[in-house]
C-alpha cells in the first residue's frame, strides 16, 4: 500500500504533470511507507507479546487462586481436626462440630471421620440418607496418605457423575503427655463448583476468552473447572485435544503461545501449574480478540497513511500543475507558431527561474521565427517578382531571337535569291551575247548590202538597247549578290564627293545643292562601293524629279565618332506604306527596275558599320542620311566593321538637318545591326 498507484497518462495532454506526480509520490511516500510498515511490524510484535504476557499472568494468577482455594479447605479441615478435644469427642459431638463446618462452608459435600485403623466413625453429607452405612477406608489412598504424610489432596471425581469434587484428608491428633498421637483421619469432599464460578467471574465473555483448570494427563484428563461452568459439569468434559497436548506435556510451570485448532481457528493460549496439585490452569483467547489492539493500531496506521497519500496526491497535483502551467502555455504558443500564427500568442509569465528563461528564449525564438518567416515570404515575393521579370525578359529575348531568326531567314532567303539571280544572270548573258552578235551581224550585213532601211535600223537599235538594259539589270543583280571583299581607304569625304559630283551626268533640269562640313571629315571606306550607293541615291532622286528639282548633297560631323552624309531630293516624297519596304531587295515602284538600288545602299552602309536614315514628307521631298564612322587619326586603319565594335553607337535621333533642307516630319531608321552589339 505504500506504493502510490501511478496514474495512467491520458492522451497526449498533461503527461508531464502526471510524471511529476508519480515522482513526488515515489519520493515522498515510499520511505514513509517502508518506515510505517516496519513500525507496524515492531508494534505488532510488541503488542502480541504483551497480549501473551497478559494471558500468562492471568493463568498464573488464577493458578494461585486455585491453590489458595484448596488451601482454604485444607485449613478448615485442619482447624476442625485440631479443635480442643476433637479426638476424644464421641461421634455425636464430632458430628455436631462438623455440621457447623458444613454450614459455614457450602463447598463441603461430605465430611467423614475415620479412626486409626480406617473405620468410619462419623459420616455426614448433604445428600446422604439418615443413618448411612459406615465404610472402611483402611486401604484407601485418601486415608493412608493422610496418616503417613500428614495430608491428602486428590480423588477427583464427579459427584453424581456431574460436579467435580475433590477429597481432602487430614490426620486427627491427640496430645498425650507432650506428644501428639494420630487418632484418626478427617476427610472432606469439596465441591469444585466454586472454581468454575470464579472463572466465570474472571472471564465472563464466552466468545472472547475462556479459562479452565485441568488435571491428569493427555489420555486421562479431568476438567476441574471452566469459565463456562456447564462445560465442567458434563460427564465427559474435556478441553480440545490440541490444547491438551500442548499444556499437559509442558515441562515449564507456566507458558503460552498460539495454537491452531482443527477447525482452523487460531488461539492465543497461556497456562500455569497449580502449586502442589499439578493441575494446569489454562487461559485462551481467539487471536482476533487477543490481537485486537494490534489490529486496531494497524488499521489506524493504514488510515493515516491513506490520508497522507490522498493529501500528497492533491498537493503533488497542485505543485505539478503549477510547475507545468508555464510549460503548457509554452506548448500552446508553440502549437500556434507551428500553425504559422505569430500574433496573439498566449501570455507567458516570466518567472525568475529556468522556465522563465525558457519562456524568454521562446519569445526570442518566436520573434526570430517571425522575422525569418517574414524574410522568407519577402524573398518568395522577390523571387516571384524576379521570376516574372525573368519571364518577361525571356519573352523579350525570345521575341528578339524570333526577330533575329526572321531576319536571318529573310537574309538567307535573299542570299538564295541572290545566288539564283547570279546563276540566272550568268546564264542569260550567253543568249544575250548571241542576240547581240546576231543583230550586229544583220545590221552590218544589211548595211554593206545597202538594204537597211530606216525602220529596220530603228528596230535593230531597240533590240540592242534592250539587250544593254537586260545586261545592266544582270549587272545590278550580280553586284548586289556577290560578296566582294571591301577595300577601304582613308579618304577626305568632301573631296571625294566633289569629285564624284563633277563626273555625274546630271540632267539639265536638276540643280545640285552642296552643303559640306567645313571641318573636312575623314573616313575610312571603300570608294567604289560607296560611289555605287551614292549614285543609286542620286539616280533615284533624279528619276522622281522629271520636270524640275534639286539634288541636295551634304556632309555633317555629328560627334567625335560619326559623320553623316546626306543625299536628298525635292520630289514627291515616299508614302508611309512604301517607306517601310524601300530597303527590301527586289522591291520597286518603278515600271522598270530591279528594286535593288536602295538595297545596295543599305548593304554598302551596313558593310561600313554605319546605318541609313530616311526623312520624307509627301510633296516636299526625301532625305537619305548615311551615318559613317569617322576615321580616327593615329589609329591604324582597320576594317570598318571591326572599328565599329569599339565605337559608341551612332546618334539615335536624326541630327539637325542642314539649313537648306526642308524639315521632314517623320523619320524611319533602319539598323544594319544593332550598334555596339
Amino acid at each position, binding site marked *: 500500500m505504500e506504493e502510490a498507484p501511478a496514474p495512467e497518462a491520458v492522451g497526449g495532454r498533461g503527461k508531464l504533470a502526471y510524471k511529476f506526480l508519480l515522482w513526488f509520490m515515489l519520493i515522498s511516500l515510499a520511505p514513509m511507507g517502508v518506515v510505517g510498515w516496519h513500525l507496524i511490524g515492531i508494534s505488532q510484535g510488541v503488542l502480541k507479546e504483551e497480549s501473551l504476557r497478559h494471558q500468562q499472568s492471568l493463568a498464573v494468577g488464577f493458578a494461585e487462586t486455585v491453590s489458595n482455594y484448596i488451601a482454604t479447605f485444607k485449613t478448615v479441615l485442619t482447624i476442625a481436626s485440631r479443635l480442643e478435644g476433637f479426638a476424644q469427642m464421641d461421634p455425636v459431638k464430632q458430628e455436631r462440630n462438623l455440621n457447623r463446618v458444613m454450614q459455614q462452608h457450602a463447598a463441603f459435600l461430605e465430611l467423614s471421620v475415620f479412626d486409626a485403623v480406617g473405620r468410619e466413625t462419623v459420616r455426614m453429607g448433604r445428600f446422604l440418607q439418615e443413618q448411612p452405612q459406615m465404610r472402611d477406608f483402611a486401604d484407601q489412598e485418601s486415608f493412608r496418605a493422610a496418616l503417613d504424610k500428614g495430608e491428602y489432596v486428590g480423588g477427583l471425581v464427579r459427584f453424581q457423575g456431574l460436579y467435580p469434587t475433590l477429597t481432602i484428608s487430614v490426620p486427627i491428633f491427640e496430645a498425650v503427655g507432650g506428644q501428639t498421637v494420630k487418632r484418626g483421619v478427617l476427610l472432606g469432599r469439596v465441591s469444585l463448583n466454586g472454581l468454575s464460578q470464579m472463572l466465570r467471574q474472571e472471564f465472563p465473555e464466552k466468545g472472547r476468552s475462556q479459562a479452565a483448570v485441568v488435571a491428569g494427563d493427555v489420555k486421562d484428563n479431568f476438567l476441574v473447572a471452566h469459565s463456562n461452568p456447564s462445560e465442567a459439569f458434563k460427564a465427559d468434559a474435556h478441553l480440545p485435544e490440541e490444547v491438551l497436548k500442548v499444556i499437559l506435556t509442558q515441562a515449564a510451570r507456566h507458558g503460552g503461545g498460539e495454537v491452531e485448532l482443527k477447525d482452523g481457528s487460531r488461539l492465543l493460549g497461556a497456562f500455569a501449574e497449580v502449586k502442589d496439585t499439578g493441575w494446569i490452569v489454562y487461559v485462551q483467547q481467539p487471536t482476533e480478540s487477543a490481537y485486537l489492539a494490534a489490529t486496531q493500531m494497524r488499521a489506524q496506521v493504514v488510515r493515516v497513511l491513506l490520508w497522507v497519500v490522498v493529501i500528497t496526491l492533491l498537493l503533488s497535483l497542485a505543485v505539478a500543475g503549477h510547475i507545468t502551467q508555464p510549460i503548457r502555455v509554452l506548448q500552446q504558443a508553440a502549437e500556434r507558431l507551428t500553425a504559422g500564427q505569430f500574433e496573439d500568442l498566449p501570455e507567458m509569465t516570466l518567472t525568475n527561474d529556468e522556465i522563465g528563461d525558457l519562456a524568454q528564449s521562446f519569445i526570442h525564438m518566436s520573434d526570430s521565427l517571425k522575422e525569418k518567416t517574414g524574410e522568407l515570404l519577402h524573398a518568395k515575393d522577390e523571387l516571384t517578382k524576379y521570376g516574372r521579370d525573368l519571364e518577361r525578359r525571356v519573352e523579350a529575348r525570345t521575341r528578339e531571337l524570333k526577330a533575329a531568326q526572321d531576319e536571318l531567314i529573310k537574309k538567307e532567303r535573299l542570299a538564295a535569291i541572290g545566288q539564283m539571280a*547570279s546563276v540566272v544572270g550568268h546564264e542569260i*548573258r*550567253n543568249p*544575250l*551575247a*548571241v542576240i547581240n*552578235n546576231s543583230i550586229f551581224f544583220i545590221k552590218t550585213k544589211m548595211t554593206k548590202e545597202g538594204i537597211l532601211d530606216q525602220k529596220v535600223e530603228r528596230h535593230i537599235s531597240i533590240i540592242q538597247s534592250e539587250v544593254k538594259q537586260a545586261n545592266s539589270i544582270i549587272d545590278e543583280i550580280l553586284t548586289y549578290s556577290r560578296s566582294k571583299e571591301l577595300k577601304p581607304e582613308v579618304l577626305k569625304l568632301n573631296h571625294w564627293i566633289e569629285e564624284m559630283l563633277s563626273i555625274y551626268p546630271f540632267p539639265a533640269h536638276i540643280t545640285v545643292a552642296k552643303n559640306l562640313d567645313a571641318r573636312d571629315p575623314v573616313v575610312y571606306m571603300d570608294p567604289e562601293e560607296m560611289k555605287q550607293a551614292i549614285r543609286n541615291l542620286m539616280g533615284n532622286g533624279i528619276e522622281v524629279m522629271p520636270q524640275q528639282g534639286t539634288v541636295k548633297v551634304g556632309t555633317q560631323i555629328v560627334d567625335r565618332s560619326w559623320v553623316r552624309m546626306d543625299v536628298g531630293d525635292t520630289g514627291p516624297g515616299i508614302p508611309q506604306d512604301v517607306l517601310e519596304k524601300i530597303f527590301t531587295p527586289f522591291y520597286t515602284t518603278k515600271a522598270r527596275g530591279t528594286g535593288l538600288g536602295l538595297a545596295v545602299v543599305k548593304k554598302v552602309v551596313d558593310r561600313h558599320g554605319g546605318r541609313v536614315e530616311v526623312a520624307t514628307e509627301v510633296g516636299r521631298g526625301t532625305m537619305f542620311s548615311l551615318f559613317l564612322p569617322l576615321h580616327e587619326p593615329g589609329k591604324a586603319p582597320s576594317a570598318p566593321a571591326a572599328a565599329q565594335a569599339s565605337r559608341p553607337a551612332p546618334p539615335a535621333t536624326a541630327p539637325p538637318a542642314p539649313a537648306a533642307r526642308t524639315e521632314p516630319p517623320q523619320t524611319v531608321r533602319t539598323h544594319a545591326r544593332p550598334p555596339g552589339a
Partner: protein
Amino acid sequence: MPDNAPVKLLVIDDDAHLRESLAEVLELDGFECLQAGAAAEGIATAKKHNPKVVIMDIQLPDSSGFQICQELRKHSREAILIMMTGRFLSSEEKTQGFQLGADEYLTKPFDLQELSVRIRQLLSRGRS
C-alpha cells in the same frame, strides 16, 4: 603570209549559236574564222591552222580557257589570246590569266564593233 590574205581567227565556245554568230560577224569584218566547240578540238585546230587570234570561253566542258591559253602560248608567242566570260572575274583571276598568256578579256555580251577595233589594234602592234 601575204598582207591581203585574211587573218585567221579561231573561236572556241561550247555554245554553238554564240560561236557561230561571233564567227559570222568577224567574217563580215574580213577575218577567216575557224570554230571549235571544246578545248581539245580548239587546241588541235590551233596547232593545225596557226590562227593569229584565238577567242575562247573560259568555261568549257572539257577544260578551262586558261589551260587552252597556257597550251597555245607554248605553241605560239605571237598569237593574240582573248578570253570570254559570262561572269565577273576577280582581279586575281584576271592576273592569273594574264600570266598564263591571255591578252584581253571580254564580258558577255560585248560590243562587236569595239572587239573588231581591238583585234586589229592588237594585230598591228604585234606586227610592228
